[in-house]
């Protein structure tokens, strides 16, 4: 018997030793939740922090049958944050474990990767809308693993060359918000500037200056730092001709001001000047307490429009002459948001600007016609400067414009649980209320829009021209909606930690023609490495 027991024990030991594979990767012991995805040109991308991988989910249509590809790509050690580029073709991932930035290029069949070493850890990725730069900064949120956090340090990643490069800059102020200015030409030179917004000051960062005092120029917004803090809320960029010379201006709105600060950038005139630009600061009167501002092209030229944050009015300013005029929006509450769009002029081939201004506190929406506003000694054009649309359902929580210029339609979201949404016809200034569940999001595609409900397992297909809506049933409650590459499919993301998606053909989004894909994040899970590399 003892021999038998010994043999049994030996067998166990042999089995244990030979079968020993090492430590199982910790990712298998963590919950599956991959967080919120980023939208890219090919579909959706998740950052799987448990396995330091990017997971791309790409819908398609093969002989009218919906498909869903899942592509996994290795990211860097400790991949923590991911942001997509403006065109959805690149992904930027910060790797906390190895202090690097990974740049992923999304092609249809594969994902390329380039790594850049960083000098310290950052937790904010600021993406240039023009795709030329990425700036890394620190949010100021305290992190347990950081010994020091430089709130003023930024990393400037230059993407213009095929080999991206990075340089580091210590700003004179804390980098709270970074706004990329569009590319412009001044004195024959192409310029790229970034505005760093901080309390009571802004800093202009010249992305083309690699060294010296030109790298950053600090502009205070108050006489003394002891004055009441003015926090910049918005920066608008404008390039225009004044007195025969080219000028670039930044208009800065703060939260505690009755004026707009205009910062003018001109090439340095004096030869002895060592700096590239001459900067001058001016205060522009624009109503009682300017809130949101925008530049508008009118027949009389470029105008600055400022919504007042304390009254239901707006002010139009001629930035060259400084002339301004204030008008009543007639909506009863200060407008918090504006949307600029264009409408065709009857009988003419040109487009005219319009501005839609709304407030979540008012069921009236204002449509401003800037061409009808005369400033100073200008000859006024006939027509009403401000018209209104009354929303019969309720106040607007959000208004989204159909991006097609010739469309003239917008969707109004309402906050109430039974208020549904409203289709606005901005040409005839009429509304079509659609009662029902409130929308969470909307996607425009040609002359139609697809709406996602917040609390129902349905999509809604909205015909914008005829102003009606038809519901489309879904297998489960949706979380977000994306248009697939080539615009052939709709990708609906559902709740569920293991990954559940529905792919529907855009032309026929029915249950019969669609496919539901489940356990998407577990696809081919058995083929993945199980053990840590020894």
């Amino acid at each position, binding site marked *: *018997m003892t*021999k*038998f027991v010994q*043999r*049994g024990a030996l*067998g*166990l030991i*042999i*089995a*244990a030793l*030979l*079968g*020993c*594979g090492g430590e*199982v*990767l910790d990712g*298998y*012991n*963590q*919950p*599956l939740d991959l967080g919120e995805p980023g939208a890219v040109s090919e579909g959706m991308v998740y950052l799987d922090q448990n396995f330091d991988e990017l997971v791309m989910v790409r819908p398609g249509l093969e002989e009218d049958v*919906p*498909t*869903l590809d899942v592509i996994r790509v290795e990211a860097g050690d400790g991949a923590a944050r991911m942001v997509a580029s403006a065109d959805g073709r690149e992904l930027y991932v910060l790797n906390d474990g190895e202090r690097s930035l990974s740049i992923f290029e999304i092609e249809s069949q594969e994902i390329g990767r380039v790594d850049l070493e960083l000098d310290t850890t950052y937790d904010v990725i600021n993406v240039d809308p023009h795709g030329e730069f990425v700036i890394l900064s620190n949010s100021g949120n305290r992190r347990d693993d950081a010994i020091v956090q430089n709130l003023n340090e930024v990393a400037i990643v230059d993407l213009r060359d095929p080999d991206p490069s990075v340089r580091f800059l210590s700003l004179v102020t804390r980098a709270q918000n970074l706004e990329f200015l569009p590319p412009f030409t001044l004195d024959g030179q192409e310029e790229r500037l970034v505005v760093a917004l901080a309390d009571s000051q802004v800093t202009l960062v010249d992305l083309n200056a690699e060294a010296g005092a030109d790298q950053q120029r600090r502009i205070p917004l108050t006489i003394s730092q002891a004055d009441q803090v003015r926090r910049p809320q918005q920066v608008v960029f404008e390039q225009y001709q004044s007195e025969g010379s080219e000028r670039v201006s930044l208009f800065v709105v703060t939260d505690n001001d009755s004026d707009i600060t205009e910062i003018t950038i001109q090439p340095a005139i004096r030869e002895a000047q060592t700096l590239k630009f001459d900067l001058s600061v001016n205060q522009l009167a624009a109503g009682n307490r300017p809130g949101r501002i925008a530049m508008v092209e009118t027949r009389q030229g470029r105008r600055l429009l400022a919504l007042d944050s304390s009254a239901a009015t707006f002010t139009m300013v001629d930035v060259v002459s400084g002339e301004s005029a204030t008008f009543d929006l007639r909506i009863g509450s200060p407008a918090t948001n504006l949307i600029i769009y264009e409408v065709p002029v009857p009988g003419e081939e040109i487009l005219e600007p319009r501005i839609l201004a709304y407030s979540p506190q008012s069921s009236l929406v204002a449509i401003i016609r800037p061409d009808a506003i005369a400033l100073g000694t200008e000859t006024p054009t006939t027509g009403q400067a401000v018209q209104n649309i009354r929303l019969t359902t309720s106040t607007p929580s959000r208004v989204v414009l159909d991006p097609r210029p010739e469309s003239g339609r917008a969707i109004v979201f309402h906050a109430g649980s039974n208020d549904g949404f409203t289709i606005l016809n901005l040409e005839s200034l009429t509304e079509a209320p659609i009662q029902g569940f409130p929308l969470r999001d909307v996607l425009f595609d040609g002359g139609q829009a697809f709406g996602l409900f917040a609390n129902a397992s349905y999509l809604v297909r909205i015909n914008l021209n005829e102003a009606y809506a038809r519901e489309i049933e879904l*297998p*489960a409650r949706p979380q977000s909606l994306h248009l697939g590459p080539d615009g052939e499919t709709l990708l609906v993301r559902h709740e*569920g*930690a*293991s990954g*559940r998606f*529905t*792919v529907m053909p855009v032309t026929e989004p029915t*249950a*019969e023609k*669609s*496919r*539901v*894909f*489940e*356990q998407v994040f*577990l*696809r*081919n*899970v*058995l*083929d*993945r490495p*199980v*053990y840590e590399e020894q």
Partner: protein
Amino acid sequence: MRSIERAIVLVAVVIAMTGSSLAASAQEISLEALLGVTHHGGEGLEGVSGSRSASGTRLLIGVDPGLVEGVGFHLGWELENAVGSGFAGELDTSYQNHRVMVGADYRPVELGGFFRPLVRVSAGFGRQELEFETSEATYRGVNHGAAAYGGAGAEVVFRAKEDGALAGLAVGATTVVGYLWQSRAEFTSMESTTVPEEDLWQRGSYEAGALGASGISWSLGLNIRYRFLP
């Protein structure tokens, strides 16, 4: 029943018939019930279920036709499973491995009248079943393939008195350690088992990947034998 399952049953019946005709001229028949464990060493299953091995039971019907000294044949049904969870309990995994094996045992000597070392080889079919359950859905896949086994072990035998009422009967215990080879199971088209009858939504195909079920295999059990006395 699927065609492969039909084939397995047909082969088993043929073997049983052959076996029974062999048994007609047999010297000894036996029935062995074992607990077995096969150690996969991880290979995919440990991540999703936390287990490196699959364990279960084996039932062997043996016959010694007396053709070659010490050589007996057996037909075995084996069932092993591994149940566990991964991803902090969000995935429940259930794995089953059915095997039908035909094999031979070689017992060269009997020491002290009760101790016999043995060598066992067998080959047959395997059916592997995998089920992934999450809170949203359950998917199941099945894979068929070949299996083969080679191992060595020992058994102890206690025979009843030759002149007693139970003459010819013997009971014993066996343990065998060896290597089980099984063809790689590709779970490439798993199907959902939680779709309601009236559901109009079609599910897209789901692949879990490939699983290797080969590994060190150990079994331990009891047997009962009947020797036909001349």
